[in-house]
């Protein structure tokens, strides 16, 4: 009994000593040697697909940074993802900011939806934590004077301006075939705002707006809309709808054999590889002005292959998330610290250019990257090409589209 008791005490002492010598410092090392990044995406709820894609891009970038030796100026410290789910709801996005703050994150990346981004960035501003917007196009996100908010991708205003320039140039090169347009938009802020903005700018490229058609969400049948468009006989249909209605409207116009020079959208909800894969005849020749990678950059092609090897599509959410992690990692390298003030100062002076987007050098002005731009895309029967700006184009636009048989 006595021997056993002594052994037990000895064992306890040994275990305690071992823990003090190895275990606890080990824990402290792990805590101080990883920089936590809070990823707040809507991975459940209506926006789950896009949120999941954004999270995938961020996680792949974090793994890539760590595999390349971590943040070298800080002795190879690793990045660590702290996962959050906004459940496609702004109030949950805010709650996730608070939870991840308690978990000790040094920065946040998110949020896909503008409404969630607006609320979550405001919550993060209380703690002066850097917040990188991977996707979220509302210009309000970077115009509220929040010093902690940075967006690499272009905002909605810039996208609309560039879209009009792109459409004007493509149309002019085709002999100004497009003279009239019908705008079909969904009834919420996204569709209504886009339609209003575009309707105001189209006359500047000599395109007159023949009619603006608003529809509800959900709309189950677009036959009557197609009929009205057929009656108006516009040269161009400009669509501004969410994914479901985007696909349904495009399909109905195709079925109803509506003769058009082109179908065009800005940040089109349903314009993606899935549409091309599932409805190639509908998608072919459709044009969208959206976030896209530089198809001439080998880094983009390499990452595309890696993402596709995981069974996922290389959608814009993936590479916008990837680039947000990378620009933050670059700021950490230069700041040599995860201190929030120092990281924000490093982001403010960022001149990062090791990306694969059709952007120039990064330059944040009031949090918005002035070098960010979207591209004009056109679907073929099997793929999506960049057709504008010319220096990044992978194909020439087919415009006007061939007449229907």
């Amino acid at each position, binding site marked *: 009994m006595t021997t056993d008791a002594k052994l037990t005490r000895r064992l306890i002492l040994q275990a305690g000593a071992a823990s003090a010598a190895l275990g606890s410092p080990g824990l402290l090392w792990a805590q101080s040697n990883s920089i936590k990044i809070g990823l707040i995406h809507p991975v459940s709820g209506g926006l789950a697909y896009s949120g999941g894609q954004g999270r995938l891009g961020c996680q792949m970038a974090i793994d890539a940074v760590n595999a390349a030796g971590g943040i070298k100026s800080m002795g190879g410290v690793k990045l660590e993802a702290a996962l959050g789910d906004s459940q496609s709801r702004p109030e949950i996005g805010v709650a996730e900011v608070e939870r991840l703050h308690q978990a000790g994150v040094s920065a946040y990346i998110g949020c896909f939806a503008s409404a969630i981004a607006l609320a979550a960035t405001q919550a993060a501003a209380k703690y002066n934590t850097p917040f990188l917007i991977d996707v979220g196009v509302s210009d309000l996100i970077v115009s509220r004077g929040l010093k902690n908010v940075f967006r690499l991708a272009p905002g909605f205003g810039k996208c609309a301006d560039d879209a009009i320039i792109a459409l004007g140039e493509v149309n002019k090169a085709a002999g100004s075939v497009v003279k009239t347009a019908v705008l079909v938009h969904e009834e919420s802020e996204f569709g209504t705002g886009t339609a209003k903005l575009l309707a105001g700018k189209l006359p500047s490229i000599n395109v007159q707006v023949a009619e603006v058609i608003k529809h509800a969400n959900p709309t189950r*049948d677009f036959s009557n809309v197609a009929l009205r468009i057929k009656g108006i006989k516009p040269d161009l249909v400009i669509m501004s709808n969410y994914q*479901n209605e985007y*696909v349904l409207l495009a399909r109905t116009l195709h079925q109803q054999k509506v003769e058009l020079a082109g179908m065009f959208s800005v940040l089109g909800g349903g314009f993606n590889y899935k549409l091309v894969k599932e409805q*190639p005849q509908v998608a072919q020749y459709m044009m969208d002005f959206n976030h896209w990678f530089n198809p001439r950059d080998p880094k983009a092609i390499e990452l595309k292959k890696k993402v596709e090897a995981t069974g996922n599509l290389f959608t814009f959410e993936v590479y916008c998330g990837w680039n947000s992690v990378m620009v933050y990692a670059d700021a950490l390298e230069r700041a040599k610290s995860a201190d929030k003030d120092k990281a924000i100062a490093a982001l403010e002076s960022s001149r990062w250019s090791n990306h694969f987007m059709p952007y120039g050098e990064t330059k944040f002005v009031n949090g918005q990257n002035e070098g960010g731009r979207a591209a004009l895309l056109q679907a073929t029967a099997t793929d999506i090409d960049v057709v504008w700006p010319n220096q990044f184009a992978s194909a020439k636009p087919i415009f006007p589209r061939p007449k229907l048989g």
Partner: protein
Amino acid sequence: MDLTILGAATINGLLIGGIYTLVASGLTLIYGVLHIINFAHGSMLMLAMFGVYYLLTIFGIDPYMSLLIMVPAMYLLGFLLYKLLIGRMAHGKDENILLITLGLSILIENLALMFFKGNTRTISVSYSDMMVEVGPTLVSLPKIISFGAAMALCAALGLFIQHTDTGRAIRAVAKERVGARLVGINVDRIFAISYGMGLATLGAAACLLMPIFYVSPTTGHVFVMVAFTIVVLGGMGSFLGAVVGGLIVGLTESFGGLFLGESLGQIGISLIFILILLFRPSGLFGAKR
């Protein structure tokens, strides 16, 4: 207004009404017998549509051929769901069934989000874009097929209920549960059969819808409110009511869109709902209780 457009809007309204009828017929059957609103109706439709999608994309089975699989599969799912879950947890109370179906719909939708993700899926088959000239307008062939099938299905359901022993038992249970039990009808089994039949109609609806529509985990919401309106308009438990109600709602939506714009046009459906509840709560063909 141009008569050509009016004619085309009428055709479009009738065809979309046929699709609504298809979705509403199962709902009216379940209400007619179980006297409960099946809140899981939309999510079950979505589940069936995903079934059709994967039968085509994985096994190459045409959506119309999928009828042979989806109708019995959905019947079986409904029958087992009632036997193993709804019936056991209801403890004889209608309000319990209501809550169980509500819970089921939340569970199914979230599981669908987890497994299928939130992306919109469509299918393309050789006849997807086939159009038929009907008077002044081009009409999609799959829409005509789904309209015809919806009418045939409702007629078949009506005949089944009127002229078969099971149909008579269903009517007996719908009218007087205790009386039906006293004459030897297994009421619990009839409940399960009715729930199974309600879901089987959704299996058929899914096969007929997929060539013309899309599916995502929230697709059920797109149809379920319209289906409820049709059931209230036509009279709860009436197949003829589902047909007439479906066509009226389809036409209302079509003309509403034409005259008030596609955004405001859908207000007509809500107006019908309110007016029927105010002036004829039992619906056009519903029995007064």
